[in-house]
């Protein structure tokens, strides 16, 4: 089983997208650190806490050069030139900088750099290249699996830490956070709802739900049956974090990391739009563009029924069920999948 895990070969197309995503995130992270250097000065010139011996902490100009190289590495990864080595070097230099000052440590930064490092080990250089033709086909999957494991590990460590902390489990931590954010929610929500969510028991329930969600994300992403629900929950979870807490690039890192859980094979589903309707041809063009993960073969039909979708197993879906299947595999529409699944779950496929 271990040998099979490390020998497995799957389609590599989506790994290129993973590389571009983490190249962009790494570039954004590097620019942020450069801005910090401009705004607050070099950390090595003031109070800092290195994990490495002090003589290994670079000088101010050395750190500036490091940031430039890191930005260059991220940029090369984005355009697909020497991309694996460039991404690996950029991730390693970012990790080195964290070891130079633990005051600069943030979980989201560390996670971004670890995932970027693992992405660099995948055959991510064969697609989404600005220069040179793509080289489609299969390649080793093991490093992409490790990217997934890295995503899960964060959820697992975070949820277990909260679960074993009585203050977190009991709602004390979240109750205070809700109280601190009350002045904002008072402007957005009716008074009765604000009073409702301000009660201690609500914070306790929310804490248990948060812990349960993280545990479910850690495990649910790995099983085909639970994966869509886990991905949907994860999207909602991170949109919620981004709206309420703005944790640097954390939500973007985790959401991009979800690409590692997408089935690598392409165009195993079919979407067909009616050419007999006024909206059909336009929607067909639109959804070809929205199909970022190349999930569908795009077809048209002459019958008046606007939309038909065949899933991976060949089952045909019509009406709301077809829309549900379309949303399930279209990233920008994925948030609509769960509500549509709820209202259409009784509809039998044809």
């Amino acid at each position, binding site marked *: 089983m271990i040998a099979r895990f490390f020998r497995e070969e799957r389609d590599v197309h989506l790994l290129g997208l993973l590389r571009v995503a983490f190249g962009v995130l790494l570039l954004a992270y590097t620019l942020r650190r450069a801005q910090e250097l401009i705004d607050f000065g070099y950390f090595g010139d003031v*109070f800092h806490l290195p994990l490495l011996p002090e003589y290994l902490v670079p000088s101010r100009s050395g750190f500036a050069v490091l940031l430039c190289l890191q930005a260059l590495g991220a940029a090369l990864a984005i355009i697909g030139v020497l991309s694996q080595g460039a991404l690996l070097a950029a991730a390693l230099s970012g990790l080195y900088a964290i070891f130079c000052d633990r005051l600069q440590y943030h979980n989201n930064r560390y996670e971004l750099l670890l995932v970027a490092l693992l992405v660099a080990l995948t055959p991510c250089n064969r697609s989404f290249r600005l220069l040179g033709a793509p080289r489609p086909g299969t390649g080793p999957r093991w490093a992409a699996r490790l990217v997934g494991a890295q995503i899960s590990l964060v959820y697992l460590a975070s949820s277990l830490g909260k679960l074993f902390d009585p203050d977190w489990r009991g709602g004390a931590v979240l109750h205070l956070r809700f109280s601190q954010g009350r002045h904002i929610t008072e402007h957005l929500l009716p008074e009765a709802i604000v009073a409702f969510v301000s009660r201690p028991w609500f914070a306790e329930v929310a804490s248990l739900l948060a812990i349960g969600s993280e545990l479910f994300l850690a495990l649910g992403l790995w099983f085909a049956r639970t994966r869509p629900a886990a991905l949907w929950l994860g999207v909602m979870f991170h949109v919620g974090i981004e709206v309420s807490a703005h944790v640097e690039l954390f939500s973007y890192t985790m959401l991009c990391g979800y690409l590692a859980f997408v089935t690598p094979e392409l165009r195993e589903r079919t979407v067909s739009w009616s050419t007999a309707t006024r909206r059909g041809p336009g929607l067909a063009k639109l959804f070809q563009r929205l199909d970022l993960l190349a999930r569908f073969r795009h077809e048209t039909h002459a019958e008046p029924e606007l939309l038909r979708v065949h899933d991976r197993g060949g089952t045909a879906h019509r009406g709301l069920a077809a829309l549900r299947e379309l949303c399930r595999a279209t990233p920008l529409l994925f948030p609509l999948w769960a509500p549509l699944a709820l209202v259409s779950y009784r509809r039998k496929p044809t």
Partner: protein
Amino acid sequence: MVSSKLAVASRAAFALAFFGLEAFGIYFGQRAPDRTFGFQMFNESSRVTVRLFREVARKKRRVLVPLPDGQWQAPDARGDVRDYAWSTRARASSLWVLGRSVHARYGLDAQLFRLQAALDDAMRHIPEDTQTLALVAEVETSKNGQPGPLVRLRADRP
């Protein structure tokens, strides 16, 4: 066949080393006061209020002089009066905020650990100050909404 086995072995060894090191990091983070590498997100809703003092000798006694804005003046060895500021060294972290309740990032233990290190660092970097015998911080703490003890940290002249 041999190269395939070698590839599998090297991939497995890498995965083992990578996650082994990371697991060690998480173990370290669970025990480290600032939770570095521990992946403990939103771990506490604690707050601290830091008040800074310098300890000086007056009439053969040691007294604490409050530094509400973190600034003071002291003579050097030649008798020239020089300006000092807490924020000169602690500017890259939230530790420079004095006299005001602030969120304790990564928890109470993390802030106290960082504050002690910042005090030690500050004392190491004011060798010209001939008056200040120690820097002392009094920290009002509140852990997850419950008032905590008043913690006193100090760093003596090295």
